[in-house]
């Protein structure tokens, strides 16, 4: 049995290495382009190991562009959006999952249906909404947009997880005298840790990669986010250099990956195996 298992694991590892490589091909391509001297994404003799190796493109990204400033803007937006998202989604999802009140079912159904609206023209409406409030060209405006956009997902996703946590646990706590706040913070949240992390990660990645609102509503390079800055660097016909763009794309993605890697150990539920029967 042991041996069989070891062979199984070996095959599994090979499988994942292959899959990961497959998934990474376009990214490795970008990586190779970013290390290449010259100004082309294409070439008839591509190899993953660049022929004319250079780090200049990375230097150009880090020093010629205000990348640190953009990073700062992005971090501010991301941290605030994730925090506020959680602050509104957790009580909201708790309410939708645990508290029986009139109209609850309709809210849940209605929220999902809202996703079917083709939002191509929403930008205009949002502008009309934020402009009188003086929120155009401000970070607060963007944060409201981001939190609002992700709120449905956060509510529903958290609600789904909350629903899966057996009610008896909090009932017991209720008997012990815990109030709602304590129930949320002391019981639900530890149990729903994976859900919180997934939801937070979703918001984070959305904010990190969002560029349409960022470029339209923010003016001036110093207000750009990373994604917006990257967009402005984009290799167009008139300007732009593919290797620099490729380098910038990778630099932008890196923080997300680091966070994702670091956060995984918290992604295990407080619900221990076999602890509670479903």
């Amino acid at each position, binding site marked *: 049995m042991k041996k069989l298992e070891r062979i199984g694991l070996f095959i599994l590892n090979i499988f994942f290495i292959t899959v990961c490589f497959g998934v990474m091909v376009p990214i490795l391509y970008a990586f190779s382009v970013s290390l290449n001297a*010259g*100004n*082309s*994404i*294409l*070439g*008839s003799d591509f190899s993953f190991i660049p022929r004319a190796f250079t780090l200049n493109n990375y230097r150009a990204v880090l020093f010629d562009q205000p990348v640190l400033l953009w990073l700062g803007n992005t971090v501010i937006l991301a941290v605030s959006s994730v925090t*506020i998202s959680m*602050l*509104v989604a957790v*009580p909201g999802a708790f309410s939708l999952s645990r508290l029986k009140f009139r109209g609850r079912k309709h809210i849940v159904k209605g929220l999902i249906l809202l996703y079917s609206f083709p939002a191509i023209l929403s*930008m*205009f409406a949002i*502008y009309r909404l934020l*402009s009188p*409030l*003086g*929120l*155009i*060209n*401000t970070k*607060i405006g963007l944060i*409201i947009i981001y939190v609002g956009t992700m709120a449905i997902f956060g509510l529903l996703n958290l609600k789904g997880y909350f629903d899966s946590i057996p009610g008896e646990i909090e009932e017991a706590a209720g008997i012990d005298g815990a*109030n*709602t*706040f304590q129930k949320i913070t002391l019981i639900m949240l530890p149990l729903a840790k994976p859900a919180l992390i997934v939801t937070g990660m979703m918001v984070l990645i959305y904010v990190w990669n969002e560029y*349409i609102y960022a*470029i*339209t509503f923010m*003016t*001036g*390079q110093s207000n750009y986010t990373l994604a*917006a800055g990257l*967009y*402005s660097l984009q290799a167009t*016909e*008139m*300007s732009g250099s*593919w290797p620099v763009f490729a380098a910038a794309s990778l630099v932008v993605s890196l923080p997300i990956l680091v966070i994702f890697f670091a956060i995984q150990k918290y992604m295990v539920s407080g619900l221990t195996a076999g602890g509670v029967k479903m």
Partner: protein
Amino acid sequence: MKRIITIITIFIIMLLPVGCGGSGSESDEANRAVKLTIWHDKEEGVAAALKEELDKLKPEIEVNLERKSGLTEALKLVGNDPKAAPDMYFFAHDKLGVYSEMGILTPITEFISEDELLNFLPMTISAATYRGEIYQLPIYFETLLFMYNRALMKDEQVPKTTEELYQFMQSGAGGRFGFIEQHSTAYYSAGWIHGFGGGIIDLDGTALLDNEETIRALGYRKKFVEMMPGETEYATVTVLFIEGRAASTIGGPWLVPTIRQSGVDLGFAKMPVVSETGLPIAPFSGIQGLHVLKVAADNPVKNGAIKEVLTLLLNPDIGVAMAKASGCAPAHLLSYEQDEIKNDELVMMMREMAESAVPMPNIPEMDVMWVVLDNLLVDINMRGVDVVEACFEAQKRAENLIRAMR
């Protein structure tokens, strides 16, 4: 219970400053200087050249250049909002019809007299004119050029006519591809249509896709397309040319630095003449310049400053500086009396091209033509649809879309 209320209170407090957080950043100490904002979408070097010139107006007028991605869409949103709109923008001329119809532009002739524009290339002024009003102060322009790789196409081999070009392609003398261009994009095919005496849309917004000239041009061009690779977006064409797998191409001046950097011995030539008509291939040109927004013109404080800015930019030197930074050609005729321009082969070639090049139509209806013509070219060049049928079909679609604009 209390804590929940606390949380909610905290939340409300967090949302409160939203209302007043806004535009505080700009309220610097009450400086006497009039501040103007110009949006643009240009590379740093080009913007720096403009900025350097505009800094001469300091300390009375302080001009702030802001690079704006997605400039055209942003202007539609904020165009008449004094709080969010820029005072001027620096961009190609082809959107000015849209903005003029929207009512967010002011003619530059409200600030400078038409006489002062006499020294500009006529092409640039006609490009800046929409319904009889001039909305752009032209600074520089670009147009496509015939370029060849001297290693693959000798100077004496350069085709004078399209038939010569075709023979060169067929002879295989130029390597894998004798000639390539982005054959299935509206911008690049316009030159051929003009070469047959046709057009894409006329001044009053009538689509011309089912005209005999257009049909003949696209039908004739097909035999060239068949000898080019199927996929010819910008990156492919550039790389094929740079790698020496294509002997000649029609491309913009923005390509030149990249090509030269790659070590290709680059030659420029006049556009081949269409054998059938005797007219040269006449590509589109784009004129870059400054536009004034109505919200700024209506502001009595800014109005005077705008006049100063425009007057300063009438100076031929700025065209030279910006043309050099962008690789394009100045719009001001006097710029061409300067040695550094006179000795620049590329710029002089564009100056010559300006005689035949056609500015992109600036009427709003052109917006939909890009899409329709692109699709028409795909139909003819890549999907094998009959030319006449495809052109009639496209004309119908264009007419429908133009009607749908109103």
